């Protein structure tokens, strides 16, 4: 198979315009003859569904939750970037492009990232027109704040609930199309497989999560907007239902997977506090503007923070990175917290935490100023931990947060299966090896509102609009496979719960394929994962039946896929012997223990093609060519 990213020719700034002009169009009367399936109703899925329906296509949208308003995009706190330059502080499309590609440690495709920066401004206009209540200045103009990895203020926000407000905007646009009859919304449906006919994506198989019914749906194109796979680690900041199943089944049907080992670990999360813990909660990165990170100087110091005198505290970020201090990028902050804990200097009952201390800021600016800035976050922290950060330092630790890897897509956001498009976190396209804060919301909405409406037409114009139906043998076969898998899961009747096994997988992944990776650890994980998978298929227990609402069965299906997918993550991490962005190979560090890229050998996207159950995946490279920026070693000293 040959990978063709289909990047248009011409100067960077003109590629998207040229491509839109060169793309084929579907005339308005013909649009209503095409059916499109959208899986997922987060920012990417909801915005795509609404925009495609507005154009006249018939859209069927699926989500796991009881309502499309609940997708995990809703949990994003901080904001959304755009190159509006409303602050007159030197921002531009090129600067947003440059910051994003540099933040990703030069492992993303130039043309895609530039287009993202280009459409960023349209997103803000669109959202305001929908009634998204962004923060405003007294004069009524939009407010901006600054975020990690940028020297300009380009982040738009709605308190600490930006993701919620943007999602509700997209959701309202989606609901409007439901009213018009252009979108059929199917909630509490889980996609179990993709249906391929004559090499093209032609539909999906879903499970009705209330009745257990296995359903088939046909379309002329399938759009996956199914989010990231952070829950491979069991504990992450993702919602409980976030999973890799749709993407993984597409992979097994021929869609290549790109950079699966690129996982962002967010430095400011509430630490793990017990073995019963179900998920981790993120505290906005904005806290590092005023909080100072420290640990005791002496390993094993168990005194409460107030009893540790100033001289016996180690403000390790400020000491090591005097110019960026506590505001180093996410990957650097995370790795350093781990390093301190590995040295025995961690704090709290588990010794796996560091302090984030606001006392100096409170003394400097006054308690009321600090509380006004961070009150809602402090409140959230106190609810979970019963400690008040106004009086004692917060405890934080890194946690799995976002996955830059995903299904490989070309410039049109089409996967290696014709007719299968992938949007948002589910694709690999824009963030390289590390995503900057406030860029996930931008990408999800760019893909859904402003890219797929153009690029899907270019595909549909090349295929027949003849009605599709689910009578084809491929639908029956795929549905039978899904049913058989469910029966197999239910028949195991072993002794371990799904969560127990998922937790075991999570620990292996966190240790070997987490913040720091090395050859030996990854090799060991490659032995352990198949053993856990075998145990799952022999010893898991799932009460209840398949013909009803069965949450154990839902989780089992997802964990079964994580158990296969995790192996690909490890294989990918092993094959990339350089460090870049969030992927730190301990073997590849600078003298100062920073991630050391190897552009001569690894300036490429690692793309994996499924070759069957008993064969290794085939490795392909998409070379990354930089014509407009010069890759440089990141330094935050």
């Amino acid at each position, binding site marked *: 198979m040959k990978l063709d990213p289909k990047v248009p020719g011409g100067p960077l700034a003109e590629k998207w315009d040229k491509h839109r002009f060169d793309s084929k169009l579907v005339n308005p009367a013909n649009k209503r003859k095409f059916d499109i399936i959208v899986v997922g109703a987060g920012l990417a899925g909801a*915005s795509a569904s609404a*925009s495609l329906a*507005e154009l006249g296509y018939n859209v069927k949208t699926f989500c796991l*939750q*009881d*309502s499309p*308003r*609940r997708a*995990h995009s*809703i*949990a994003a706190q901080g904001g959304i970037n755009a190159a509006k330059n*409303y602050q007159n502080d030197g921002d531009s499309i090129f600067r947003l492009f440059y910051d994003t590609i540099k933040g990703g440690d030069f492992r993303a495709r130039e043309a895609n990232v530039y287009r993202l920066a280009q459409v960023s401004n349209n997103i803000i*206009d*669109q*959202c*305001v027109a*929908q*009634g998204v*209540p*962004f923060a*405003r200045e*007294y004069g*009524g*103009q*939009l407010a901006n704040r600054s975020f990690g990895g940028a020297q300009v203020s380009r982040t738009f926000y*709605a*308190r600490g609930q930006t993701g*919620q*407000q943007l999602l509700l905007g997209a959701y*309202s*646009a989606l*609901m*409007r199309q*439901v009213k018009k009859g252009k979108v059929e*919304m199917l*909630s509490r449906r889980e996609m179990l497989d993709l249906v391929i006919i004559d090499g093209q994506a032609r539909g999906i198989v879903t499970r009705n999560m*209330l009745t257990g019914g296995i359903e088939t749906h046909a379309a002329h194109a399938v759009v996956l907007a199914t989010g990231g796979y952070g829950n491979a680690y069991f504990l992450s900041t993702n*919602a*409980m*239902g976030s999973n890799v199943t749709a993407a993984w089944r597409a992979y097994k049907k021929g869609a290549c997977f790109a950079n699966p080992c690129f996982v962002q670990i967010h430095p400011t999360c509430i630490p793990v*506090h*017990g073995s*019963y*813990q*179900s*998920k981790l*909660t*993120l505290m906005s990165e904005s806290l590092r503007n005023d909080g100072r990170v420290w640990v005791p100087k002496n390993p094993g110091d168990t005194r409460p923070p107030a009893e540790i005198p100033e001289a016996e505290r180690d403000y390790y970020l400020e000491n090591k990175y005097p110019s960026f201090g506590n505001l180093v990028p996410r990957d650097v902050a995370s790795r350093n917290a781990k390093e301190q804990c590995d040295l025995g200097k961690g704090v709290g009952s588990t010794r796996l935490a560091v302090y984030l201390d606001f006392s100096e800021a409170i003394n400097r600016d006054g308690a009321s100023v600090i509380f006004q800035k961070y009150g809602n976050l402090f409140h*959230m922290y106190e609810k*979970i931990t*019963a400690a008040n950060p106004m009086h004692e330092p917060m405890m934080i630790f890194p946690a799995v947060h976002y996955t830059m890897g995903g299904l490989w897509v070309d410039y049109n956001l089409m996967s290696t299966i014709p007719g299968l498009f992938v949007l948002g976190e589910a694709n690999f396209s824009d963030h390289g090896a590390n995503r900057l804060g406030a860029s996930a919301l931008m990408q999800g909405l760019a893909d859904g509102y402003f890219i797929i*409406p153009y690029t899907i037409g270019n595909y549909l114009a090349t295929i027949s609009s003849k009605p599709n139906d689910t009578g084809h043998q491929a639908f029956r076969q795929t549905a039978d496979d899904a049913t058989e898998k469910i029966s197999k899961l239910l028949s195991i009747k072993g002794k371990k719960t799904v*969560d*127990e096994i998922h937790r075991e997988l999570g620990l292996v992944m966190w240790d070997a394929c987490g913040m720091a990776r090395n050859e030996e650890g990854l090799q060991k994980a490659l032995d352990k994962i198949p053993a856990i998978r075998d145990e799952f298929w022999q010893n898991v*227990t799932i*009460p209840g039946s398949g013909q*009803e*609402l069965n*949450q*154990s069965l839902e989780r089992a299906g997802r964990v079964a896929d994580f158990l296969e997918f995790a192996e690909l993550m490890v294989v990918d991490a092993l094959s990339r012997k350089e460090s870049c962005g969030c992927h730190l190979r301990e073997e590849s560090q600078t003298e100062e223990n920073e991630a050391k890229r190897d552009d001569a050998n690894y300036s490429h996207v690692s793309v994996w093609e499924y070759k069957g159950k008993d064969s290794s995946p085939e490795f392909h490279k998409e070379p990354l060519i930089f014509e407009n920026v010069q890759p440089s070693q990141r330094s935050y000293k």
Partner: protein
Amino acid sequence: MSKIELTLKIWRQAKSDAPGRLQTYASGPISTDMSFLEMLDVLNERLTREGEEPVAFDHDCREGICGMCGAVVNGHPHGPEKETTLCQLHMRHFKDGDTLVIEPFRAKAYKIEKDLVVDRSSLDKMIISGGFVSVNTGGAPDANGIPIPQKNAEEAMDAAACIGCGACVAACPNASAMLFVAAKVSHLALLPQGQPEQARRALDMVREMDALGFGNCSNERECEAACPKGISIRNIARLNREFLKAAIFSDED
């Protein structure tokens, strides 16, 4: 960290049309650092190992923002803590030996699917009836083209903070969705972008609410007390004004 033991009386119902009943379970030792849903996880893990069906309950983000979780705990939707979703309620607020009665959200316009899982699609239906601004993708004017006073933007945001969990309905003696509808009508009426459809929206959403079997508001304020996001009933006053204005003065029918 300390441990407590509780008696749990949980609503068990196999499916919508099956009879339900409260079933009693001993919680076993529960860490006070656990969230309420983690406490249910611990119970479910035990039930699963014993070969019993675990308690079905809706949940997703577990950060208090998706609005998927919710149950009535000792008569309070989302439990006894103010402005807290069930997933953000922690067990340190309960005492050793407490008995907790855990039931699904109940209302005429909701349907119990299984145990604590409820069909709240009626909330989506009210949004479908008019809870949006009719604007297509593309061609929106510059975002700073229309200045919006900060106060209006903030008030709109107060209303837009609704997470659509539907606890307000479960708390209301009339099972009314007035707070939910009022939050959306207020959010959009406070912004210039929402104003062209202001009258139509108020009429359509209220009409849909009635048609779906939600009750009316009789100023009990239970909705506001139960709301995990602190949505104020002042929004209901605004909805009433908007509705009256639309019904009497507008050309919309």
